[in-house]
């Protein structure tokens, strides 16, 4: 179980209908690659976030497969069109089976 995992997301609170907004996400995670060895020469087991998805009102916006080369605290910035008021749902999938979720509402205005 990875410790100190905490998702952070920045989404504008309001947007015009049809506007393209910029979304920033970051999750604090050690992203242990599985390539390193400890002091005794034993391999430190891999422990990374392997998938990140974002849905808007149930419709998928982005779906990312993450590989071990991604460094600590993976940060994603991307753009999305907001056709209507609704809710973004962000999901991170950990190697250990944990799922971290965060939601953000966007109003039209």
């Amino acid at each position, binding site marked *: 179980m990875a410790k100190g995992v*905490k998702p952070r997301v920045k989404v504008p609170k309001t947007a015009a209908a049809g506007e393209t907004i910029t979304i*920033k996400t970051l999750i604090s995670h050690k992203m242990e690659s599985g390539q390193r060895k400890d002091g005794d020469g034993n391999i430190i087991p891999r422990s990374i976030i392997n998938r990140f998805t974002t849905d808007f009102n149930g419709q998928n916006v982005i779906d990312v497969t993450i590989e071990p080369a991604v460094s600590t605290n993976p940060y994603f910035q991307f753009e999305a069109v907001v056709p209507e008021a609704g809710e973004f749902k962000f999901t991170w999938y950990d190697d250990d089976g944990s799922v971290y979720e965060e939601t953000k509402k966007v109003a039209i205005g």
Partner: protein
Amino acid sequence: MKTKIIITSIAAIAVSAGSLMADEDAQLVIDDEAMTIQADAPAHMENVDEVLSGWIFRSRETQALQMDDFDNPAFIFVDQALDLWDKVDGTEGKSCSSCHEDVAEFAGLRTKMPRVEDGNLVTMEELVNECRTDRMGAEPWKWSKGNMTAMTALIGLQSRGMPMNVAIDGDAAPYWEKGKELYYTRVGQLDMSCSNCHEDNYGNMIRADHLSQGQINGFPTYRLKNAKLNSMHGRFKGCMKNIRATPYKEGSPEFKALELYLASRGTGLAVETPSVRN
């Protein structure tokens, strides 16, 4: 021919001016709040006219990281400290929030640290550990470990934007004098003092890097080189290793005195905690 000479000399001036800083007119604005990154030097500084934040000396990309609290990686640790704030620890069953209702009550504290209490020079780290051992019955945190730097960043953040203003008179005077002496004393195999780099040569290159004035108004600071928050005393140790001297210990009287003296050299600069540096 004459014109050619003039042109080359102008180019030479432009190059030397360019190497001083990344962008001299850059303004540090965080959440629509402008930070004071330049100020007239306090009267006790004999060799410097203007004090400059270390932010000025960094590259544009590094500067941009500090201008947005989301992009600033230090805020991961500030978030962790907010969790620690409410976490009960120790034999008394207390957390920070049991006594201190809101961390915002520490607004302004960072500008006055370190300070003298009952004749002893006290730093932020010691205030935190005093609470932990005396009031919470918990184990003290190590000086530069993650918990401590996160907590001092959270407390320091409350004072962000306020001008540094430590007391250096009265009880603090002997500590300040000691700090000043350390600042100007050459040590180590390279036989260098703090002033050789941070007073005589700030703005010049040291290998691939711009030397700053060595201001401490942004500590604890997130460094790109180790991707974590760095304490002041940890940074002092790094400097001393670079000049091949034997570093003093974190929390030693020497480093505490130096911290006070350096804080006084930054008088007037805004607290930038937690800053981003390379």
